[in-house]
């Protein structure tokens, strides 16, 4: 099998959590999930709470063991965390003892023996995320949106094959969130970077995703694969224009409908 750089293959992956940690019997969180992305594609995992989106993302990152099936990135099988799969968490993860600049440079610093040679890359990403004036600031002095930008720049500067993001904009206000979506899309398209992200936000999913995997509730399965192709690349330019496209409204209400069904199913299950 010849695999291109940045390709993601999730092949019939299942996840079984042993129940000892939460005083529960072993439970199946993911049941035979498959999902592929080619280089430069943006994949979105969407679905009701508890359907296993984070679990799948963490398995791709190598932070969670794979119970069955296999995951490959750039043709290499995932067995543990590595620098080829950068991760951005929902919570703030800037290292508080490092300045903005040092945070962004962290990956490069630990991975290269020659220090100081990566100044250009760090400068470039600081510039792109608009934090160059804050390079000497500590994370505590930044707003939530700025800290999340640092986390994204830190992951990007390390030049991973694929960028993984778990509800990266979840804690941000709508305006910042919208700016960040455009910012990340801009960088990702320029670098031709593969992205896999989790979101709860349907609008975000349609705006950013080339391919949306809609998960059904527990055990998580891919209920439907959705590819928002309408509007071409132009739908990324302007969110207002995107929403004006009739196809957008159709897709949004279809996803909303699925959300409702899954929510009802989940409630029936727990009742």
């Amino acid at each position, binding site marked *: 099998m010849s695999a291109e750089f940045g390709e993601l293959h999730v092949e019939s992956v299942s996840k079984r959590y042993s129940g000892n940690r939460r005083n529960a019997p072993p439970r199946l969180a993911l049941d035979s999930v498959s999902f592929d992305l080619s280089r430069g594609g943006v994949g979105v995992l969407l679905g009701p709470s508890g359907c296993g989106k984070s679990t799948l993302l963490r398995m791709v*990152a*190598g*932070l969670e063991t794979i119970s069955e099936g296999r995951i490959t990135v750039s043709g290499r099988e995932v067995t543990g*965390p*590595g*620098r080829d*799969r*950068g*991760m951005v*968490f929902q*919570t703030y*993860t800037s*290292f*508080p*003892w490092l300045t903005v600049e040092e945070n962004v440079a*962290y*990956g490069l610093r*630990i*991975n290269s023996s020659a220090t100081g040679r990566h100044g250009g890359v760090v400068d470039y990403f600081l510039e792109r995320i608009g934090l160059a004036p804050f390079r000497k600031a*500590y*994370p*505590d*002095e930044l707003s939530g949106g700025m800290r999340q930008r640092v*986390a994204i720049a*830190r*992951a990007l500067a*390390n030049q991973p094959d694929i960028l*993984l993001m778990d509800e990266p904009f979840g804690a941000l206000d709508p305006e910042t969130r919208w700016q960040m979506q455009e910012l990340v899309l801009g960088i990702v398209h320029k670098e031709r970077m593969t992205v896999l992200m989790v979101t709860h936000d349907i609008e975000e999913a349609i705006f950013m995703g080339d391919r949306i995997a809609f998960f059904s509730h527990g055990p998580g399965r891919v209920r439907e694969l959705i590819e928002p192709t309408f509007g071409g690349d132009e739908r990324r330019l302007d969110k207002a224009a995107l929403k004006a496209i009739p196809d957008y409204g159709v897709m949004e209400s279809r996803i909303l409908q699925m959300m409702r069904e899954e929510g009802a199913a989940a409630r029936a299950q727990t009742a």
Partner: protein
Amino acid sequence: MLRPPTRTKPVRIAFQRPVSVTQRILLGTAAWVMFLGLWQYAATADLAPQRLFPPPTQVIATLETLFLEQGFHADVLASLRRVGISFLVAFAFALPLGVLMGAFPVVAAFFNPLVSPFRYLPAPAFIPLLLMWLGAGDTQKIALLFLGVVWFLVTLIADHVRSVRMELIETALTLGASTRQVLIGVVFRASLPGLVDITRQMLAVSWTYLIIAEIVATTDGIGAMIMRARRFVRVDEVMAGIVMIGILGLLLDLLFRFLHWALFPYARQRSRKL
């Protein structure tokens, strides 16, 4: 103090209401003035013979005499040396153990059952053993001070290291950090400010064990001086010794507070917010 009337804010009592720096200093000073005033009054009011209950002014004068005429500084240095050496040894022992226990549950599962019960054994109970094994010299006293803090140090360090957020560790892992890089560059590094705080707090505990250590067969040290003074019923010297211990403890505390402030500029803002 005279201040423009517009800026004088009354000190109000309300839950969790922050107190300004000036107010804090004023209140703190007031507490001391009150305490010393009461002491001075009680001591000079002939409630008890002054020989048994000297006023603060006399204790200060005695402290001065001790330093100027009786070479008290040698005792102070001897005590500082004992606390310093024992604490260094205890810390050097507790640091790797605590960090590994905090970072790896497997290590904790192995050592915890061993370490935890030791915390409940009072260090002074070991004095007879230490006397038989190590004699009455300095080694025995340093060993006692060591035993007084080492198990608490291990547990406190382990607890603190365990509280390093998992997301920071996982972020480093996904950036390609090795186990060693995560352990030293993230887990240990993130714990550093807390380690300085733990040091500050446990030094205070070590300091309280000092007297117990120096009461037994000792010729020098603040504790020995106090015991000597007791034999001659020099209450003023006993009190001067106690005051000296308090002052040194306070200075050590301030030193470590300053270290924390100077070494971790990024942690300043947060501590102000909390």
